[in-house]
């Protein structure tokens, strides 16, 4: 099945800094999504982005499906951005999402 690799695994930022998170896929990208798991454990949908670029406030994402990767950009980071960021795509035999191991982001005040 599809393999999903995320980098970096951990990231510590000072408030106000920018960052780029990466997601690589072993197979073709179909329905790529980015999620934020906040410190309370909730999985929040950030982007559904099978291809192209989308922006939502300080966050934007780009997926280059032909090269099997996606990038999540966080600008002017805030402490509330802390948590774990996951990318995922449908690749399981049951039509389920396959997740990367996540990038744990800590934003310091």
């Amino acid at each position: 099945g599809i393999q999903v690799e995320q980098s970096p695994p951990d990231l510590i930022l000072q408030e106000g800094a920018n960052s780029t998170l990466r997601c690589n896929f072993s197979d073709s990208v179909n329905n790529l999504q980015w999620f934020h798991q906040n410190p309370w454990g909730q999985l929040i949908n950030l982007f559904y982005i099978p291809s192209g670029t989308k922006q939502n406030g300080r966050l934007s994402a780009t997926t280059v499906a032909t090269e099997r990767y996606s990038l999540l950009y966080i600008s002017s980071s805030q402490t509330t951005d802390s948590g774990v960021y996951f990318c995922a795509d449908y690749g399981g035999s049951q039509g389920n999402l396959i997740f990367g191991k996540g990038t744990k982001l800590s934003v310091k005040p």
Partner: protein
Amino acid sequence: DAGITQSPRHKVTETGTPVTLRCHQTENHRYMYWYRQDPGHGLRLIHYSYGVKDTDKGEVSDGYSVSRSKTEDFLLTLESATSSQTSVYFCAINRDNTEAFFGQGTRLTVV
């Protein structure tokens, strides 16, 4: 918000007891999923459903059963809870075979 509610949100139970977790959705989606999240393993599929009374096993289905008697409800049952089933459980729906949305999660502790 995709109208997904999980209950209970937290539960502590004893080894050997049966436990049922409920997932309720309000948007009439056909596909529903149960995942568990564990450190070092990410989210893994337990069972899924593609319609009323239509369910199938996922990657880590041993020790779990599911039922879906109504479109809006998908139940996950641990027949005899074990400590290895201590985890955070997430229900998810699949909107139009594209974007997935997750419930708030249920933190289950088996002592």
